[in-house]
């Protein structure tokens, strides 16, 4: 059954979209990530124009982070002041990101920029996660090993504008969280992702936040930033396809539940290795596309409105 998407101006199989949403939901339930980093390249692949894929991806992240953040609030695992500081940076970053995105679209380099960003970030984070989880598996067999301390935590304590974050039990400068929030905001706008896969490690390793509040706070900040990004894309590019977003969300909701059940049956280290391999595979595929000679050197971009 085909469905015509009003903004993307393409007709796509309804079940394909539900399936894609379901797949992403499955991953997000399984690994606790938003899934934006998978959905955007997949949407490119089925022929959705890049501008629409990125903007609609941001809209889909809103839905998945709402259901996540509600559960975290109930567990009191959201550091609201920290979230606000990240937010302030995030909104600035997301505005900057939209400017960058529109500038790249005019230059015709948006596909390249998005792909490069994916290759660099996914490759880097995938490699780090893989290394970390293999080490964690080894450590489980060899007790008593010490976890290396990060140097940057000292810097966090030396900067001005210190603030107390009760839920996280931290007394640190607001500059690092502001900068991290901003970086994630830029990524959210350019890549159509929530940025959880960057935010979570940054909060743990750079800010030294306790792991139990990291997920909730990250989801909280991602929710607001991706909502803001969606709105900016809708206003400046008119590229949010509400029909596409709804189908992905419906599929995603069901997939997330299956993923959560499945995840309960696997060990945390195994899950992390699987996620790392998945992230690396996506990065490798996109990287190869950039390096290998393409089958068609020419591409068309239509429409005078953009």
């Amino acid at each position, binding site marked *: 059954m*085909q469905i015509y998407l009003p903004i993307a101006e393409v007709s796509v199989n309804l079940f394909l979209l539900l399936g894609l949403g379901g797949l992403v939901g499955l991953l997000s339930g399984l690994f606790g990530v938003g899934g934006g980093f998978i959905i955007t390249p997949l949407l490119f692949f089925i022929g959705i124009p890049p501008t629409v894929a990125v903007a609609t991806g941001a809209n889909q992240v809103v839905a998945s982070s709402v259901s996540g953040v509600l559960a975290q609030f109930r567990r009191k695992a959201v550091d609201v002041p920290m979230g606000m500081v990240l937010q302030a940076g995030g909104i600035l970053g997301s505005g900057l990101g939209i400017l960058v995105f529109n500038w790249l679209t005019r230059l015709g380099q948006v596909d390249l920029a998005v792909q490069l960003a994916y290759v660099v970030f996914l490759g880097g984070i995938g490699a780090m996660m893989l290394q970390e989880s293999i080490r964690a598996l080894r450590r489980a067999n060899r007790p008593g090993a010490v976890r290396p301390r990060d140097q940057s935590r000292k810097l966090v304590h030396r900067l001005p504008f210190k603030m107390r974050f009760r839920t996280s039990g931290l007394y640190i400068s607001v500059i690092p969280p502001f900068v991290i929030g901003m970086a994630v905001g830029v990524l959210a706008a350019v890549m159509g992702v929530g940025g959880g896969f960057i935010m979570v490690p940054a909060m743990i390793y750079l800010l030294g936040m306790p792991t139990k509040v990291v997920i909730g706070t990250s989801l909280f900040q991602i929710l607001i930033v991706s909502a803001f990004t969606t709105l900016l894309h809708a206003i400046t590019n008119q590229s949010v396809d509400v029909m596409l977003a709804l189908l992905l969300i419906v599929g995603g909701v069901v997939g997330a539940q299956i993923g959560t059940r499945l995840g309960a049956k696997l060990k945390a280290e195994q899950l992390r290795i699987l996620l790392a391999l998945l992230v690396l595979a996506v990065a490798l595929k996109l990287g190869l596309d950039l390096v290998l000679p393409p089958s068609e050197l020419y591409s068309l971009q*239509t429409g*005078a409105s953009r």
Partner: protein
Amino acid sequence: MILRALLLLLLLTLPARAERVVAGISADNIGITTAFDGSSILIFGAVKRAAPEPDGPLGVIVTLEGPPQKVTVRRKTREMGIWVNSDKMVIDSVPSFYAVASSAPLDRILAPETDAKERISVPVAVEAYAGPLGRSDGRPFAEALLRLRAGSGAYTVSERAVTLAADTLFRADFDLPANLIEGDYTARMYLLREGRVIDQTWAPIKVRRIGLERFTYVLSREQPLAYGLLSLGLAIFAGWAAAAAFRLIRNS
């Protein structure tokens, strides 16, 4: 003098008037709904004769042209090991869709000079539309445009797709793709003998989004803030509803 010129003109046009084309279209309005997955359109017609049929084969060509678009053609080259878009050519106006159907292979019924004048075949029609390329090395870009559009089914040629009965009645079926864009389409019908056009006619076809499609599209263009808020509201509601629904399932 003027009278003689007029008389001469009349004499010249008289043989062409001996056969005329009368045409109809199965639908002059196509609505794109949410369930739209392509459409087919039937263009039919008859040849009206004032005199006995002349010798030689009769050719019929039917074309369907979509609304013009601005297109940017980009070319990738390898820079520092990766493939990037490094060069582009902007063509201000080319048809978004162009389909040609004919009763026989085009080279048999359409003379090149007629094609150049009437702009019937795909490359001629598209390039006539685009105008001069504006750069001397634009040829590969124009060829790429034709190749990519032919590959995606936007520019098609179906020789022998026009069926001609008793040299009088003809019909052509066009399949319109699922990714049809809205706008004013034009169907043109040409009657040919010995490679020359002896009569032609045209008819407009309107393609419009209707219903929910129209509402969504118009809202996104005219009230982008409201549209953005609506998208957000739906996403937030869906997220909340999902969390609530699954909590209910888990508790029961």
